[in-house]
C-alpha cells in the first residue's frame, strides 16, 4: 500500500504523519489525529457532516484525500471554542436549540464559520441557501437558521 509523509496544521497545531495515499482526509482526522468531532454521514459528498475549514474555505473532508491536505492549515470543530469559551456560533446554537442529536452539528458550524465571515449580514434566504449542502434529520432547520441569524448578530457585536 503506497504511503506518503505529510505535514499540516490543524487547529493551530503542527502535525507530521505518514498516511496511505487512499485514506480520506476525514478518516485521517478521525483516526490518525483522533479528532472525532468531524462526522461522516454519507461519505459521498452530500450531507455536509464532514465539513471542515481548509485554508479558509469550507470543504468536505470525505471527498479529499489526506495527502491533498499536505501543507494546509485546517480548522475543525474542536478548534472553534477558545478553551471553555464557546465560539459565538456555538453559543447561538445552544441558545436557539439548533441541535438535537448533534451529529450534523459540526458540519453546520464549520459551514457557517466561513459563510458568516464572508457574508456578515445575511438574509434568511441567503442563510438557507448557504446551508442547503448540509443535511439535518432532527431539527427541520428552523432553529439552525435562527441560530445562524443570532450568530451573525453576535459576531457583528463582538467585531469578529
Amino acid at each position, binding site marked *: 500500500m503506497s504511503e506518503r509523509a505529510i505535514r499540516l496544521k490543524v487547529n493551530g497545531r503542527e502535525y507530521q504523519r505518514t498516511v*496511505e495515499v*487512499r*485514506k480520506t482526509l476525514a478518516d485521517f482526522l*478521525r*483516526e490518525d489525529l*483522533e*479528532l*472525532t*468531532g*468531524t*462526522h*461522516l*454521514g*454519507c*461519505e*459521498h459528498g*452530500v*450531507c455536509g*457532516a464532514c465539513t471542515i475549514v481548509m485554508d479558509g474555505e469550507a470543504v468536505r473532508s470525505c471527498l479529499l484525500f489526506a495527502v491533498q491536505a499536505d501543507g494546509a492549515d485546517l480548522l*475543525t*470543530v*474542536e478548534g*472553534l*471554542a477558545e478553551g471553555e469559551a*464557546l465560539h459565538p456560533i*456555538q453559543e447561538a*446554537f*445552544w*441558545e436557539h*436549540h439548533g*441541535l*438535537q*442529536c*448533534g*451529529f*450534523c*452539528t*459540526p458540519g453546520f*458550524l464549520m459551514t457557517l464559520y466561513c459563510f458568516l465571515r464572508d457574508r456578515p449580514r445575511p438574509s*434568511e434566504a441567503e*442563510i*438557507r*441557501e448557504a*446551508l*442547503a*449542502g*448540509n*443535511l*439535518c*434529520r*432532527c*431539527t*427541520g*432547520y*428552523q*432553529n*439552525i*437558521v435562527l441560530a445562524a441569524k443570532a450568530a451573525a448578530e453576535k459576531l457583528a457585536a463582538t467585531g469578529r
Partner: protein
Amino acid sequence: MAGLIGASIKRKEDPRLLTGRGRYVADLRLPGMLHAAVLRSPHPHARLRATDASAARALPGVVAVITARDLGPVGRIPVRLGPRPSLEACLQPPLASDRVRYVGEPIAVVVAASRYLAEDALERITVGYEPLQAAVDARLAAEAGAPALHEALGGNVVERLLTQSGDVAGALAAADRRIRERFVVQRHTGVPMETRGLVAAYDAGTRLLTVWGVAKVPHWNRRVLAELLDHPEHLIRVVELEVGGGFGVRGEFYPEDLLVPWAAMRLGRPVQWVEDRREHLMAANHSREQLHDVEIGVRRDGTILALHDRFLADLGAYIRTHGVIVPELTAALLPGPYRIRNYRCEVLCVLTNKTPTGTYRGPGRFEGTFVRERLVDMVAGALGLDPAEVRRRNFIQPEEMPYEVGGAALGQPTVYDCGNYPGAFETALAAIDYKAVREEQAAARRQGRHLGIGLGCVVEKAGLGPWEYARVEVDGSGQVTVYSGAASVGQGLETTLAQICGEELGLPAEAITVIHGDSALVPFGIGAFASRGAMVAGGAVLEASRRLRAKILALAARLLEARGDDLVLDHGRVHVRGAPGRALSLRDLARAAAPGQPLPPGMEPGLSAQHFFEAPRMSYPYGTHAAVVEVDAETGQVALLKYVIAYDVGRAINPAIVAGQFVGGLAQGIGGALYEELVYDADGQLLTTTFMDYLLPTAMETPAGVVAKILEETPTPLHPLGSKGAGEGGSSGAGAAIANAVADALAPFGVVVNALPLSPDRLLRLILNPGSG
C-alpha cells in the same frame, strides 16, 4: 427548583455536542481493535451455492471471514413487539446460509486491521448465486402462484388482521353518498444522519462481553444477544453512547447486533463495525409501504356513517423485531379524531423480496392519516362543503372522552384517554388564518397561480409501557444523579429528566447528572420508542424524586429537630422556614444517611430512591396540521408557504424541546410527502442507495416560520404531570395536510391526489393527464 417544569432551558447535552466532544460509536477507539465489513447480497432472490473466501482470507491484514457455516447453528432474531406464532417461519437469520431474499442481506463478515482492508477483502469473496424469480410488487406477491419467499409459509401472506366495529355493510347501504378510492403510501424510512454502528469487546478472563452503540432498547437487546450467544445476561454489558438520531429505525436488533459481538468473542479482540450510507439504505429497516382500497359512506351533511378499508402492507423479505405492528397500528388508529361507529379494516401483511421493514416515526399514523384526511377532503369535494366544516361535523367531542374506538393494538384496546379535537383544530385554523388564505387563494387563481390549503387532523399514541425505571441518588459530595432506564436518541432526554428531578429536589437542571443507556449502571430499563421519554421515563423520575425528597426531609427533620412541613428544600440545602441558619446541605444529609448512622425508624440507609413507573395504557395526543402551498404547474414543484401545527401534549416539560420535536418531525413528514422514496426496479434491485437518489429535505425545502402551537388543554389522567408524548405528531399529519393542500391547489385541473410522494414528476404527470392518479 420551582418553575423548572415548563421552562425552555438550554439543553445539558449541547456543550459537549457543540465542541466535538460527544462520543458516538464510530468515535470509539480500543487498543487492538479490528474493523468489520459485511458482504451483502446483490440479488433480490437467489439460492446460495458455494462461497469461497480463501482469497479474502489470504489478504494481509484480514483476520477472519465469517460465513453462516462458521457461525454454526444460531437462532433467528425474535419479534420484540407483538410476537405471533405465525411470524416464526419468516424471522431473519443473522447470516444467510442457503438463500438470500433481498438486496443487502448479509452473507459474510470480514474482520480486518482496518475498514479499508476489510472492504478490499469483500471484493475477493466469491459467492455462487443461482438467481430466483423475485416477488417485488406486494399485490402480485400476495397472489397464489407468486414466487414464494419462505416455503414453510405457503405463500407470501404472513398475517391477516381484522378490525371491526358496528355494521359497515348496513351503514354503507344507508349512506347518501359513497366514495371509493385507492391510496398508495410509498416505501421510505427514518434515515438518521448517523448510520448504525457497534463496537464489541470480550474479556476472556472475566467472560464479560461489552457492546457499545446499542441504542433505543439496550436492555431488550442484551437479552436477545444473551439468548443467541447462549451467554449469561449479567455477563453482557451494553452501552449506548451518543446517538445520532433514531426515528424508530436505529437500535432494533439487527443481524450485525449478533455478528459483531460474536466476532469479538471468537477473535478475542475488540471489533468495530460502522455502517456506510449505502448499506444503511439497504440494510436498516424500511417502512411505510401500504396500498389502501377504501370506501367511506356519508350523509348529505358530511356526517361519516361508515369506513371500510382493505389494505396491503409490504413488509419486505423477513419479519423483524416489529412484527406486524405497523399495519396493526394503522388499522387501530385509522378512524382518527372522528366518530365513526361502523368501521371495518382488513389487512394483508405481505412479504416481498425487498428490505425488511419496521417502524418509522408515527408508524401507521403517517400512512393512515394520509388516507383518512384525503378521504375527508374528497367527501367535502363531492358534497360541495368546506373541508373544515366536514371535520367539525365529525369530531369526537371532549365530553365523549374516554372514547372507545373499537380496535386494538399492542394488546390494548384503542381507548382515547382525553382530548379536545375541535379545540386544537380551531387553534390551527386561526393561526393559519383560514378565511384569509381562502381569499388569497381566490385572488391568486385569478392571476393563474395555484395556491392550496390543506388540513390534516391527527390522533397519535404515546407513552407505551409497560413500565420504566428510575433511581435518583445523592452521592457523598452532595451531587444528584438520575439513573434512567430509558434511552436517548438525541431528543434531549437528559435535559427533560433533569428538569423533572430538579423541580422536585429544588435544584437547577445543570446540577443534576443524568445517566442512561449503560446496563452496568442502570440495571433495568425499556428504552426510547413510541414517544415514551417524557411520559413513561419522566413518570419514573418524578416518582423516584418525590420519594427521595420525602426521605431527605424526614432525615433533615430528625437532624434539625424540626417538623417536616417546616422545612424548605432548595439550592441543595434544607433549612427551617424562617431560620436560614438552621440548615443542612445535601452533602451533610448524604453522609448522615450512610450505613451505620442513626436513621429514623424504618429508613433504609443511603440517600437514594427508585421507582418503576407502570403505564398499562397509552395516551393519545392529537392535533391539527394546516399547510398552505403553491404548486408551479409548469415544473410540478411544491412550495410550502405557511405551516401550522397545533398539538396537545398535555403538559410540556421543556417547550423548546417539544417545539423542536414538532418542527423536526415535520421536516421528515415533508420528506415523506414530497421527496423520499426507496425505489425498486421491477426485478427487485434497490435504486436509491445514496443521498443523490434518496432525497432528504434540506433548508431549502423546509418552510420558514413554521408555527408550532403547543397545547396543554387536556392533561392526560394517565400521568402524574399530565404529559403525553411529543415525538411523533410533527410527522404524522404532514403527508395528509400537504397532499390535501396540493390537491386543493390543483383542483382546477381535476387531478386525483392519492399517492405519495408528490414529487415534481408525479405532479407534472397528473397535471398533464388528470386521470393517471
